[in-house]
């Protein structure tokens, strides 16, 4: 009963935020002279209309799933990793360089890229973690700054060290390294399976193991965790490393699954998208995956919406932004004591009715 009551409010907030965001989106569409219903239909058809479009949507969701799980894991331990983008890029860059320079092909190459990418992401995540626990520096600022370092590091690779002839990009990875499709007529690759597996492992770790339990306890109340004998600093550092490793694995997987080469603008915005998605998903790994797919759908669908109804894709961006605003506001609202009182009143009434019936 209590669990049901809690999860109801947790589900209700994102759901209402999405509905509200679409409502305002519809008003904007009407203001642009389009029929909101037609435009919405085009949006959803573009994202989920055919098996091909479902495949595209799922494929688009892969990097978002990785970076949002990265943000989610750090948040669960009470620290803010805003460096998902840098860790993602370090994963992709390192994975690429390892297979390119060592000339690896086939399965060993794939494994080497994924493993080294994960390690690189973990190291990139560890840096703000170490600075936080030893020097007390603000992890948000350090992790954001490291995004720029990673972007520029990738830049030096595709502009000078491993440039593809005279173009500002690297050559593509060997064909034998490209991750295959899981189902032949859908565009998503094994990278999606890896992403889903990471999500499931995180869920298991956070909610079913003792270490995950302690990590959540540290995230909710560091002082009480310390008083109860948990090694708080170690957990914070581990959460940074694991969080970075998830993003790094994401970078390597996305490189081999979709992107194939390092190129200007790659990965831009993934980190912050991930933070927003994790927040909307109420920091639950499974919910986070669902929200990531929803965001990917908005992005894929918006193109076909623009083609068929003339509503610009930026309306989809507005809807995405509104979902973030509403769900963060909604979460703040549910923390208010007035809301708690209201909820208790509502539920105790229902409870009584159940008893009477």
């Amino acid at each position, binding site marked *: *009963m*209590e669990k049901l009551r809690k999860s109801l409010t947790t589900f209700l907030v994102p759901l209402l935020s999405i509905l509200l965001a679409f409502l305002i989106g519809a008003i904007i569409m009407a203001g642009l002279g389009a029929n909101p219903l037609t435009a919405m239909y085009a949006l959803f058809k573009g994202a989920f209309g055919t098996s091909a479009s479902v495949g595209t949507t799922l494929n688009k969701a892969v990097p978002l799933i990785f970076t949002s799980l990265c943000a989610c894991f750090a948040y669960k331990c009470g620290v803010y990793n805003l460096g998902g983008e840098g860790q993602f890029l370090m994963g992709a860059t390192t994975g690429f360089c390892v297979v390119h320079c060592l000339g690896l092909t086939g399965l060993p190459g794939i494994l080497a890229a994924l493993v080294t990418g994960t390690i690189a992401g973990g190291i990139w995540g560890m840096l703000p973690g170490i600075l936080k626990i030893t020097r007390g520096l603000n992890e948000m600022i350090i992790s954001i700054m490291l995004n720029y370092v990673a972007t520029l590091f990738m830049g030096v690779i595709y502009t000078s060290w491993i440039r593809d002839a005279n173009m500002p990009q690297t050559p593509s990875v060997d064909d034998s390294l490209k991750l295959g499709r899981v189902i032949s007529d859908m565009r998503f690759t094994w990278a999606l399976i890896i992403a889903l597996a990471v999500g499931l492992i995180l869920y298991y770790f956070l909610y079913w*193991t003792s270490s995950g339990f302690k990590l959540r*306890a540290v995230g*909710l*109340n560091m*002082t009480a965790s*310390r008083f109860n*004998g948990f090694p708080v600093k170690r957990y914070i550092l581990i959460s940074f490393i694991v969080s970075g490793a998830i993003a790094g694995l994401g970078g390597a997987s996305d490189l081999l699954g979709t992107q194939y080469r390092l190129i200007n603008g790659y990965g831009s915005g993934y980190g912050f998208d991930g933070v927003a998605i994790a927040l909307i998903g109420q920091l639950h790994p499974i919910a986070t995956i669902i929200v990531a797919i929803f965001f990917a759908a908005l992005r894929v669908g918006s193109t076909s919406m623009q083609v068929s109804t003339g509503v610009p894709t930026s309306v989809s961006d507005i809807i995405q932004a509104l979902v973030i605003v509403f769900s963060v506001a909604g979460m703040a609202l549910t923390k208010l004591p007035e809301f708690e009182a209201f909820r208790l009143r509502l539920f105790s009434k229902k409870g009584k009715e159940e008893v009477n019936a």
Partner: protein
Amino acid sequence: MEELLRMEHISKQFAGFYANRDICLTVNRGEVLTLLGENGAGKSTLMNILIGLYQPTEGKIFFKGKEERIESPGQAVRLGIGMVHQHFMLVEAMTVFENIILGDKNSGGIFIDRDARRAEIEALAGRYGLDVELDKLITEISVGAQQRVEILKALYHGAELLILDEPSAALTDIEVEGLFAIIQKLTEEGKSIISISHKMREVLRISDRITVLRAGEVVTTVKRNETDAQKLANLMIGHELAGSQYEKKTKSDGQTVLKLNEVKYHEHSKHNGLAGVSIEVKAGEIVGIAGVDGNGQTQLAQVVTGVISPEQGALEIKGEKISVSDPSAFIGRNVSHVPEDRNLQGLIGDMPISDNLILKLTDSAQFSRGKGMFLKKKEIRSYAENLTEKYDIRCTSVEQDVRSLSGGNQQKVILARELESEPELLVAAHPTRGLDIGATRFVHDQMIAARDRGVGILLISADFDEILEMSDRILVMFEGQIMGEFSGENPPVEEISLAMTGR
């Protein structure tokens, strides 16, 4: 002597509870009146009424013979009432000069006539012997100097009545002497002072008259030369020995579970440090630490549970010397801790009751498979349900977040967790603070039962009644030192009261 302030029949009610009841007091020009009372006696509430932070429920205030309604601190300042808070209210990033002219009525315009202001402040400082460096930042000057800045600021804003809240609390001995000299100078110049204190030495040094408060009411007002320390301590504590309802164990032959030998931590900080504390707790006895809040009790509790490490001295648990202080090392040696701030230090508020009850047990075979690899949620739930029944934790479900419980029930969750681990030493800091009578009684019963099972208990409390009720032995702490040891059976209340005030 001319009367400056008269408070008549002041009462202040908070949600049915009287913080002040029917308080009458007067302050004459050029005298020092001390308000003496324990924590929670109503001193701060009364002063907050006087400076306009609270409105009295009943009663009248007369200042300079005129009835006044003081509705804001700003109005109090305009009337000539200045307060120096225990924790100074200065802007650290500004200079002394800037702090003093902050909120000055003369600088209402856009420009500040710095030279004129400065001359005025320097004149004031010279007159009262308030030696401050005007151009230093607040962060650069000592605590004693900060206090002088506060006093100077109040005077600059025209204070005729100064309220000093625990004025010597943060000062070194030399600074305290300086403060006394300043107080003397101020009263000679016709300023009046209300000082809040519970330190006997200081009260006797500076006061002309002393008003004793207890439980929100005035016990009496006495002249300095008609009283002494013992009389005042008795008035302040006001304890009629009612006899404890629990049987006291005068002799414990149990094993020594905790031994501190000359433990020091921030030795020179009188209120947040330990200056050579030696304590012994045996199995099956309750050792009570009495004392006014903020005399090192917090640090004592944290040292004996590993939250902070002692800087000097030895700490032994069951005869084993502990060299590395870390909470987990103490938990591993069966030390339980009921911390003083249950929400901040004891509980994970946003986790369910059940999770809080098994907080330290998730690795055990009872609640997980493979050393914490898979939590047995059913076991956890049924265990929690048993405990909520056993410890009378009132909740709708063990899945409820512990934050949504009342204070008493939250405390029972902590107590259940800490006692179910079958500790050999229980450190309980203010275990019944803020609890109602029923919950307090329950906590006490559980602690006595634990003692009878052979648990050694170190009880730290600012509630003197609780110490008298529960302790088999009583130690008194004052400024980081143990002032004496007393028997818990027929405790010498008068001596203990006196020791609590530093005699």
